[in-house]
């Protein structure tokens, strides 16, 4: 049992590096997976007899490599990849210059984990496929855990993973660092996949599905890996900061009764201070690189919320300014809605309402319950209780999730009690 636990820990921590190295040798994710599994089985047989090796990961690597090479010699399987030759001659295409510069900082460009990350997050794969595959081959989650995480049957999760691996093999999605021209887009895709994994986990907490594996933590692990591999990617650091800062509030987000709580209502003593500090440190490093972007802006907004000891201490003026900049990067009605709320907090509810009216007139958020909900909150602050009541009713008619509905009903009830 203890041995199994140890092995699991080693595979969790080193699995991505082991798989990546094996993909380079064997050319194929499935072969790498088989080899690693074989090595793990061998460990369970040998370690009780021979003792646990000093460097368990290196031991596993040696056994897995030998197994892969043996299988190749037996000639029953696919030939070893051309990568084997490339490893010797190193004639692979030059990575983008920017990536090369990163090498000075981390030595990570030679790291096959980065190639693996780019491969499984390739935009030729659907985002859902990349999410599952990243969790499997980099995060080291089992297919069953992935199934539970995405509320899929084991068979559907397995199929999603198998299909993605097939496409990688059959369409020759490369195990390579992207070239300069496509690098920004590829890097953004990697970040996006990690962000989507986090969101999947974060949304799950709204539905009290406590049995789902902690996708938020997995996403943070992946973002941390990205930081380790590319320490000068400002937006990658921004993403890590955003995830840490958002996750730090997770416990406070839902009441004991399972209701969603606004930032104002949350018990700030439940916010995870060490995690906030980690997020702020990542953001600091990102900002020093002076290459701003949407993840950093969102992280900065989250940091300002985190810094406020009480809701009334929130620096809404700065938050408003950050939302305005975010709008330049990512124009869109949902960001605009948040900006309008921030305006309402910074310059008074009337100003916020005026912006919401504009947004409403644009029709871009038709059917989105948070627009009337935001309007209701501002109307309540202006003392327009009847209007607020109507707006909450409109929001309730649009909200679909029970947690959202419960949240809106609670706000509506407050109106009747506190309405002066």
């Amino acid at each position: 049992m203890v041995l199994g636990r140890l092995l699991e820990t080693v595979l969790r921590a080193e699995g991505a590096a082991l798989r990546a190295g094996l993909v380079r040798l064997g050319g194929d994710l499935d072969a790498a997976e088989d080899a690693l599994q074989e090595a793990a089985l061998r460990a369970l047989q040998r370690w009780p007899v021979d003792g646990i090796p000093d460097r368990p990961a290196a031991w596993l690597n040696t056994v897995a490599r030998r197994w892969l090479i043996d299988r190749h010699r037996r000639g029953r399987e696919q030939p070893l990849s051309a990568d084997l030759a490339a490893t010797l001659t190193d004639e692979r295409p030059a990575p983008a210059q920017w990536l090369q510069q990163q090498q000075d900082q981390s030595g990570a460009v030679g790291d096959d984990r980065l190639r693996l990350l780019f491969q499984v997050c390739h935009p030729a794969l659907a985002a859902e496929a990349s999410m599952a595959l990243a969790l499997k081959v980099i995060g080291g989650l089992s297919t069953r855990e992935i199934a539970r995480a995405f509320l899929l049957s084991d068979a559907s999760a397995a199929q999603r993973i198998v299909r993605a691996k097939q496409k990688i093999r059959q369409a020759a999605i490369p195990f390579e660092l992207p070239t300069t021209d496509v690098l920004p887009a590829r890097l953004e895709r990697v970040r996006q996949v990690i962000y989507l994994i986090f969101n999947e986990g974060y949304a799950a907490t709204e539905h009290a599905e406590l049995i789902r594996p902690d996708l938020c933590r997995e996403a943070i692990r992946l973002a941390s890996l990205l930081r380790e591999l590319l320490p000068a990617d400002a937006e990658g650091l921004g993403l890590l900061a955003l995830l840490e800062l958002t996750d730090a509030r997770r416990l406070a987000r839902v009441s004991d009764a399972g209701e969603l709580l606004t930032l104002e209502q949350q018990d700030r003593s439940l916010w995870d201070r060490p995690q906030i500090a980690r997020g702020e440190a990542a953001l600091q490093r990102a900002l020093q690189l002076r290459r701003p972007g949407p993840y950093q802006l969102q992280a900065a907004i989250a940091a300002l919320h985190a810094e406020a000891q009480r809701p009334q201490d929130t620096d809404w003026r700065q938050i408003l300014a950050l939302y305005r900049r975010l709008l330049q990067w990512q124009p869109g009605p949902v960001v605009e809605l948040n900006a309008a709320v921030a305006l309402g907090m910074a310059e008074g509810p009337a100003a916020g309402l005026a912006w919401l009216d504009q947004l409403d007139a644009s029709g871009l958020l038709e059917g989105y319950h948070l627009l009337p909900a935001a309007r209701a909150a501002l109307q309540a602050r202006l003392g327009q209780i009847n209007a607020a009541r109507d707006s909450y009713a409109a929001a309730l008619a649009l909200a679909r999730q029970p947690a959202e509905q419960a949240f809106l009903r609670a706000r509506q009830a407050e109106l009747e009690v506190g309405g002066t």
Partner: protein
Amino acid sequence: MKYALLIYDDEQTYATMDEAAMREVYAAHEAYGQALTEAGVLRGGSELQPSHTATSLRFANGKPSLHDGPFAETREQLGGFYLIEVDTLDQALAWAEKMPAMHNGTVEVRPLGMSAD
């Protein structure tokens, strides 16, 4: 690895094109084919006649019946294809991105079967 670059485009745009514009499209494809050849990756390809010239055999329980027209009547139709041979999908995508005379259509990048190697 061989890939087919399948060009789907709105046939109407070609049907209504004047001769000068048409010449430009052909010249662009000629240059593109030349570039593929110089890179040593071109393995074949062709323009296709408009989809109304197609005849489809639909099989039901092994019996074919003839139909006038393409597999599916959609606005965007397969209008031509290139066969190329490169190492990775990224290289194929890079070529597909340079497809000339594309405005609103789609280039589908499809790996050929293993037997094509």
